[in-house]
């Protein structure tokens, strides 16, 4: 036991400090296979006061740390490389639900779907719905500015968080709020959301709750070519219809899903399917549905199935939401990408991805938020095979560089973390990366929160000059 672990044990109790290698094993990964980092120790505070005391003890010890929710992230962002892992999953109290104001205040460890369950009696829900929503936490969603299929219409985490109380790495507690119409201060809440655990530790979050739509239509359109499905996506967006969700799954993904326990009844001979949900007021909803169906047929859809009840809708969605997991059947490892490209460029970009995949002899499974242009070209592979691993990494780099060249970005919702940090310099000029470091320095001058993530440290101009700099 070190002085720090004794101190932390005094705060949270011996049961909630882990130091043995066997106990730390489960915290070596997040949901992205391929990265393993062992924390020096893991600490799990159970109350707000304990979180504050832990952060202050870490400050006093000048100890770097990594905040972590449920560890469902897909960027390696919540991995602690021989530093303290600060787990928040015991902080799972729903503090209040205010149906009149349509807000809820929760602790950071509350699971996304549990918030929606708590809002359900009032006809409300929490709109951002990452596919991991049955496990991921609101604190993690805030850290990553998470998206999800329904963010196409309803917006991402940023658009739904009203306030957050944060303990800064230096131990100060700040309340950050969404600026009101006549606000006069900086939007530090906006800056905090998506800061990937580098700016502080969330103590509580107040979110907006969304009324459940009056009507929902979920359609599955079946295409004999990926190109047609991509063209249908662009055409729906261009026609000015804003579906609640517009997801594309290609043949490889359909095969994975249909062979798994998550089988959703997707047509196995389709080259691609679009899962399209249109929701809102009942008045006028039929017209939008008919327009979507017309566009799909014009673009060559073979068949368009409409879910007739909530069970069938849930089944159609389950296949989509569990598709990453279903890919686990194919191979022990999975490379996950999260690039976003201009929506009019979807068809040619998907063709390029297929070409790159063929050239490197790898299987690319595309499953993504087509309506946003947010791609997930995923590659199941065997990480124990060095040749295959090398081919996967080379193909992924080529795909990412192509997406950047097409005017896209490297991550739409998963975050940069460790996995995409090497692309940051292709995406942003040096001064922009330095500006991001400076923003981080305002929150965490000692650079102890989630060190080594998001921005390459050599891009921070004054990195070496910072007191307590940890690389």
């Amino acid at each position: 036991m070190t002085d720090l672990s004794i101190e932390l044990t005094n705060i949270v109790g011996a049961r909630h400090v882990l130091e043995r290698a066997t106990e730390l094993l489960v915290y070596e990964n997040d949901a992205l296979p391929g990265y393993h980092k062992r924390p020096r120790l893991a600490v799990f505070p159970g109350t707000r006061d304990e979180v504050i005391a832990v952060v202050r003890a870490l400050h006093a010890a000048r100890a770097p740390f990594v905040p972590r929710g449920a560890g469902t992230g897909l960027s390696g962002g919540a991995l602690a490389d021989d530093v303290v892992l600060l787990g928040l999953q015991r902080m799972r109290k729903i503090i209040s639900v205010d149906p009149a104001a349509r807000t809820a205040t929760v602790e950071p460890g509350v699971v996304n779907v549990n918030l929606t369950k708590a809002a359900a009696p009032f006809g409300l829900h929490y709109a951002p719905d990452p596919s991991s929503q049955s496990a991921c936490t609101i604190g993690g969603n805030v850290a990553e500015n998470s998206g999800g299929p329904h963010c196409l219409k309803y917006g991402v985490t940023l658009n739904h968080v009203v306030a957050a109380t944060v303990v800064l790495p230096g131990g100060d507690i700040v309340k950050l709020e969404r600026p009101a119409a006549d606000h006069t201060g900086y939007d530090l809440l906006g800056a905090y959301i998506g800061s990937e655990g580098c700016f502080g530790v969330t103590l509580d979050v107040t979110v907006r709750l969304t009324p459940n739509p009056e009507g929902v239509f979920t359609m599955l359109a079946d295409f004999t070519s990926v190109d047609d499905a991509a063209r249908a996506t662009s055409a729906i967006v261009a026609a000015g219809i804003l579906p609640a969700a517009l997801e594309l799954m290609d043949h490889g993904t359909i095969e994975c899903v249909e062979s798994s326990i998550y089988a959703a009844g997707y047509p196995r001979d389709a080259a691609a399917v679009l899962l399209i949900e249109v929701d809102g007021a009942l008045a006028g909803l039929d017209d939008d549905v008919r327009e979507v169906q017309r566009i799909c047929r014009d673009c060559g859809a073979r068949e368009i199935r409409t879910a007739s009840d909530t069970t069938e809708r849930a089944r159609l969605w389950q296949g989509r939401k569990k598709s990453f997991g279903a890919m686990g059947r194919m191979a022990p490892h999975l490379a996950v990408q999260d690039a976003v490209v201009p929506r009019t460029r979807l068809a040619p970009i998907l063709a390029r991805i297929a070409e790159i995949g063929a050239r490197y002899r790898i299987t690319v499974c595309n499953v993504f938020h087509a309506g946003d242009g947010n791609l997930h070209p995923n590659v199941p592979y065997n990480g124990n095979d060095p040749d295959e691993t090398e081919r996967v990494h080379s193909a992924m780099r080529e795909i990412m560089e192509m997406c950047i060249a097409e005017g896209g970005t490297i991550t739409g919702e998963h975050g940069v973390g460790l996995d995409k940090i090497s692309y940051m310099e292709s995406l942003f000029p040096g001064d922009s990366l330095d500006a991001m470091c400076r923003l981080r320095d305002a929150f965490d001058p000692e650079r102890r929160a989630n060190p080594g993530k998001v921005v390459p440290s050599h891009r921070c101009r004054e990195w070496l000059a910072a007191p307590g700099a940890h690389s």
Partner: protein
Amino acid sequence: MARGARSAQLKMTRVSNTVELSDIVRDAHDRRTRLRITGRGTWPARAGSVAADAAELELSALTGIVEYVPGDLTLTAKAGTTIAEIDAATLANGQWCPLLPWGGDDGTLGATFATATHGPCSTTLGAPRDHAIGLEFVDGTGAVIRAGGRVVKNVAGFDLTRLLVGSWGSLGAITEVSVRLRARPAVDETWIVRVEDGAAVSRLDTLRRGPLAPLAVEALDGRTLVRIGGNAAFVAASREALKSIGEIHSADPASWIRLRVSDPHPRAPLASNAVADPLAQRVKKQFDPAHILNPGIMGEQYA
């Protein structure tokens, strides 16, 4: 002309490009010359709180739409482009960036985002922080910084876009903004509704919280102006719902622009220091270490 000579000698400089702006600000930083960043001067009241000796840097000449692909529903324009210009360009494709800011459409894109100016549709269609997908700015050291991008979903790196929106030019001068667009409603109607008593007020409130929520509702003296938009069937249902609140009369759609120009929502003069907390002060110091950008505009003290 030697670099930097202008800010020292002239009280007003019309900047014509980002490189020139960067040079001027870098020089001002080195010489500790205070700067007043302006667009088309549509926020005179607030600008009045800026240090009187600040040299004016006028950005309204940085104009033009840089990229607009209607099928992507995104648009990038230089900061000095007016809201009216963007509205006209997007209207041609049945789209809009529904900022519809108080004060009207003569102001610049840069100023609208720098001031985070809301409008009557902000509650339903989003505020500036919700529309911005990326921007370019010159910070208080003269560094040219690109934040975000041109695609609608983006979490690459820390969110400098949100930081700059609403910072009133005190962290950097915005030179370019990328926004997300939406399709204009197929049918867009404006009605005056007579909201006569408490029961009608409560019926209107129920409507605003329900599935037929109007795009905008503004109470004027004795009348309530309501904007409803969507497809034909949606608008027809909304119209019927309005009738159940009180007597309705068709109104001129131009009522909205007249209302926005007359601006019934003036910003109160700054009563207090908006950046009083240590975190905000550290942010300010990181981006404007010499405290030369719009000193005083956030109500803060300057020496």
